[in-house]
């Protein structure tokens, strides 16, 4: 268990996103905005993605990150935010479903 009362700057997604921005990179921020059932990451969790597909943080236990990264590329390109939904009921469940049986909603937006 992480017991530090201070931010873990090397691993904190929002700190990393700010650093990327300062380096002149295009960045997308994905946020878990809703969960149903047993979701692996709580509401408010972040995955941050740069235009090369580098990412930090997580929005699930690794089940849907690659799909979110792909969508984030489009969001960086278009500047238009997207709402993604993942769950076992999803038709893409076998590709990117949550094995735990939960459902999550992820908001993906461009930084700037």
């Amino acid at each position, binding site marked *: 268990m992480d017991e530090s009362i*201070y931010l873990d700057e090397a691993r904190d997604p*929002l700190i990393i996103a700010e650093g990327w*921005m300062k380096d002149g990179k295009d960045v997308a921020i994905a946020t878990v905005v809703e969960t149903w059932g047993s979701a692996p990451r709580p*509401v*408010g969790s972040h995955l941050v993605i740069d235009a090369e597909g580098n990412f930090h943080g997580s929005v699930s236990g690794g089940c849907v990150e690659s799909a979110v990264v792909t969508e984030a590329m489009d969001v960086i390109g278009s500047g238009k*935010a997207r709402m993604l939904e993942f769950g076992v009921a999803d038709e893409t469940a076998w590709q990117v479903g949550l094995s735990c049986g939960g459902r999550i909603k992820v908001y993906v*937006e461009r930084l*700037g």
Partner: protein
Amino acid sequence: MDPYVLKTLNEERRARRAAVLVTDLGDGRDRIVREGDPVAGDLGAAIANAFRTGNSRSVEAEGRTFFLNAHLPRPRLVVIGAVHISQALAPMARIAGYPVEIIDPRTAFATPERFPDVALHAEWPEDVLKRAPLDSYTALAAVTHDPKIDDFALKAALDARCFYVGALGSRKTHAKRVERLLALGAGADQIARIHAPIGLDIGAASPAEIAVAVLAQTIHAFRSRGLETKGAVA
């Protein structure tokens, strides 16, 4: 997300100040609300709840959908006194999600053998608090019974607006303490925030039971902490 909003949010988080990031999921616009900033209506009530609970969620207000991401500093508990109560309090508080630091200049008390796996400072509170100041997301429990050790820390906790300040001792002991704190320059309204005798009244008899009472009182103070609107006060 607005780059300036992200920069501001990270500044608040680094400084251990609470903030709620409010994002309009319809048009993507976002802004930072700090604890005590006045926000009217249903959205204001939802934001106040986010500050109190630390829970992030989507809310409907004013015919729009907002996502409220609550960024609360991690609360912590500073205990003045490496005593028997503290030995029970440290592991209990850690399990409850409140990391503990113990400060006691008496090296016979503050030993790693008595306090395994605890952040322990065998130094005067004056010295430790200079390095790592108290803040409003810190609780302070003074349990040494020794004014030389407790008083400075209590005054510092009141000045830093710690969300909980508790002091061990009977009512008689506390009456004398009040006099000393007044002499140190603390205001009567500040001093009234001190929980003394310390702990919820559960009839605690042993050091471990007193630790439960102190922890319960700390949690109660955290979850009901005053989120009074600055604008309303001024």
